[in-house]
């Protein structure tokens, strides 16, 4: 008999293929031309616009929106991509509600910002659909740069360097480029293989040699990269996952949220992807929301996000939280896991309520249990095995504003480097800015 939402344990195909396809469709349908015209007409072309300041890549938003208004979405795309070469992905995944759209004067005035993200997607999709790559390389400088990590930071860095005329070798440990664009972002934000298509489009600049399946630390070492290239950029993201430190963490059914999401993103057929009947996600960030929402969309009967602090401390935006609840996910706050129960396989999670005294979090002593066939840990990622010689700041690579590390020919950016908000767009900004700094340094001789 076919599985249903009520099938116990972890099982695939809990709902029909059509329903799954519908669930994982574009979160926001792309704008039709008329919708884009109406949406762009709302922009006031503000002076020294606050949305530009709020964008980590400083896209000239009023200009690109005006270019849409005046019927030149391709020019709008150029305006976007000059600042942010992954403007297409950012249009889909940026938490605009806490970035540009939060700063929009119409958000302040009416609580209804100009829909900057969707307009950005309209412009970039139009250009990319034409197969146009609007940038060309400067004359060759004869310098080579190794970029490690083909996520947003590495891709932005590689593109900018290639544009400046340097030759780039882009290494990644995985068999596919894109980083979390390919393996992390929620499926309904990046449909139709967008991440892979965007990488292919970006590489049209030329001058970037991609070497996949090359892991720094095993296949590559920093000393060799430094001696064979004029500069090295590290954009390796955060490969490790924090431990729960709850009893029973090793039981079957307890998984890293990021691995589950990576499997989901790479699945050929989502009806074959198993999910628990009762799913509990532990954490309060974007990863927790994505794991929870996608579990629900796959057909889990109940999904709960449990966060140890108050709702106002959750790093997932209110918009993301509302998205989760609208899909039927329950958000439980001030509850920390103390144990996972079950005979070899998880069946329940035991929580203790917490109180935040301002000095720190303490358990109240009151506990309760939630049924759980599958438990996802989404309590943060960590830097995984960094080469010697690099100074760390906290748990990340220490860098200056331009991405310089403690080694004078090594730069770093994105999630692996200190600062930033661990967002796609900040990774792009840091990769781009490091490329500019590398270029300045290499040009100086």
């Amino acid at each position: 008999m076919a599985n249903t939402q009520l099938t116990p344990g972890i099982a695939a195909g809990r709902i029909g293929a059509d329903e799954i396809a519908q669930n994982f469709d574009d979160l926001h349908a792309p704008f039709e031309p008329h919708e884009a015209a109406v949406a762009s007409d709302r922009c006031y072309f503000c002076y020294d616009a606050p949305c530009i300041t709020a964008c980590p890549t400083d896209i000239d938003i009023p200009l690109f929106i005006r270019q849409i208004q005046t019927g030149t979405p391709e020019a709008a795309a150029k305006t976007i991509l000059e600042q942010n070469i992954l403007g297409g992905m950012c249009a889909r995944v940026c938490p605009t509600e806490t970035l540009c759209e939060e700063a929009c004067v119409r958000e302040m005035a009416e609580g209804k910002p100009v829909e900057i993200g969707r307009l950005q997607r309209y412009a970039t999709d139009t250009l990319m659909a034409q197969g146009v790559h609007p940038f060309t390389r400067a004359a060759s400088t004869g310098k080579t740069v190794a970029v490690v990590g083909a996520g947003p930071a590495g891709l932005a860095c590689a593109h900018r360097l290639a544009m400046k005329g340097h030759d780039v070798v882009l290494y990644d440990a995985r068999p596919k480029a894109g980083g979390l664009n390919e393996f992390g972002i929620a499926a309904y934000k990046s449909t139709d293989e967008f991440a892979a298509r965007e990488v292919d489009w970006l590489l049209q600049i030329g001058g970037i040699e991609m070497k996949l399946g090359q892991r720094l630390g095993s296949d590559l070492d920093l000393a060799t990269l430094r001696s064979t290239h004029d500069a090295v950029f590290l954009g390796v993201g955060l490969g490790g996952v924090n431990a729960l430190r709850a009893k029973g963490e090793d039981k079957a059914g307890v998984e890293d949220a990021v691995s589950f999401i990576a499997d989901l993103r790479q699945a050929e057929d989502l009806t074959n992807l198993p999910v628990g009947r009762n799913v509990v996600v532990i954490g309060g960030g974007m990863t927790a929301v994505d794991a929870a929402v996608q579990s629900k969309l796959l057909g889990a009967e109940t999904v709960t996000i449990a966060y140890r602090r108050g709702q106002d401390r959750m790093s997932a935006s209110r918009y993301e939280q509302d998205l989760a609840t609208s899909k039927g996910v329950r958000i439980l706050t001030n509850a920390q896991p103390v144990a996972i129960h079950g005979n070899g396989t998880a069946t329940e999670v035991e929580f203790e309520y917490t109180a935040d005294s301002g000095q720190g979090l303490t358990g109240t002593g009151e506990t309760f249990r939630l049924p759980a066939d599958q438990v996802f840990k989404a309590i943060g990622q960590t830097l995984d095995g960094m080469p010697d010689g690099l100074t760390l700041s906290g748990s990340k690579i220490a860098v200056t504003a331009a991405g310089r590390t403690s080694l004078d020919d090594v730069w770093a950016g994105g999630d692996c480097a200190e600062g930033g908000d661990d967002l796609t767009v900040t990774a792009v900004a840091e990769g781009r800015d490091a490329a500019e700094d590398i270029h300045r340094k290499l040009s100086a001789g």
Partner: protein
Amino acid sequence: MADLTTDFLGIKSPNPFWLASAPPTDKEYNVRRAFEAGWGGVVWKTLGSEGPPVVNVNGPRYGAIYGADRRLLGLNNIELITDRPLETNLEEIARVKADYPDRAMIVSLMVPCEEEAWKAILPRVEETGADGIELNFGCPHGMSERGMGAAVGQVPEYIEMVTRWCKENYSKPVIVKLTPNITDIRKPAMAAKNGGADAVSLINTINSITSVDLDTMSPEPSIDGKGSHGGYCGPAVKPIALSMVSEISRHVETRGMPISGIGGITTWRDAAEYISLGCGNVQVCTAAMTYGFKVVQEMISGLSDWMDEKGHTNVSDFVGQAVPNVTDWQYLNLNYVTKARIDQDACIKCGRCYAACEDTSHQAISMSSDRVFEVIDAECVACNLCVDVCPVENCITMEEMAPGTVDPRTGKVVEEEYANWTTHPNNPGAVAAE
């Protein structure tokens, strides 16, 4: 990439976008910032004769017409020419031109209609190193009451006379700026040409009262309860200006005369339209005053992209390209028969086309009980009103009837050959085709 560099009367500028003579060009601070923002040239705010400077009102100068979301569609002003001392303006013009040799710098002038007045100011303008002058014969308010501006621009003889004085007393190009507050724009253009003008620019602002405050019964903008007509500009005036430009481009006596197009230019597309109707460059005022100097970036990128798309490498490639297609009504092809077509998939069933056609036109759209709207070919005269009022772009289109088919409205076979009113049987003055 298209080359936007333009050569207008031998005056080079990096793009065809100049700022029109108005507040944006009234002082060094503004003009420097405009050049930094990318404007190709400026026509300095109109200067008057030496002497006590002009006095402006000290209350509101502008009135506006808005779209529903307060998008500014038309602006009206009662400002006069520059109210700063002549000497200050001339010093600033010289300084800015010296610092921006690649940008066009035109000085707008309006002095009394006496040769001495022109002889006095022209050498001083010459000294600034500016690239040319523009004669403001257009300002419709205030100055015209003193016998200047539109008061000169409405009398072709004066235009010709003053233009001649300027050509005699000034060595560089003379542009005559025309007022639209006249019945036939070709007359002043011809006068300018006869006086030796190198070019005309148009339009200046149109006489207007934007609104009346129904509580105070004062026209807007209201100065202590009273208002005066002002000059209208902005997007709303573009169609009027385009038509005037086309008349000058077409007329036998003015055809080929360089034109600087002005009036409601807000986007790259507006500019391209002016150029296609014969303008060598364009001037902008209201768009800059509404959106700031940065708006030129969109004009530049848009024009450049469009030129690339069309394969134009230089702006001069398409100057006047649309002029041969502007004709008189009597030459329009009466054998060109179209019918409205409603795309049922695109239709949202609002019924606006029905209201327009049924109430005010030709009863050529049917409406079913379940709100399906269809064109009745036997009634449709192809007026286009349904297309114009339909809120969905491309939902209603005009389809040409193939030659040989029968137009169910007239019962006549659609002829392949072109035929116009001049040969139409109903025309008492028709000349039979040879």
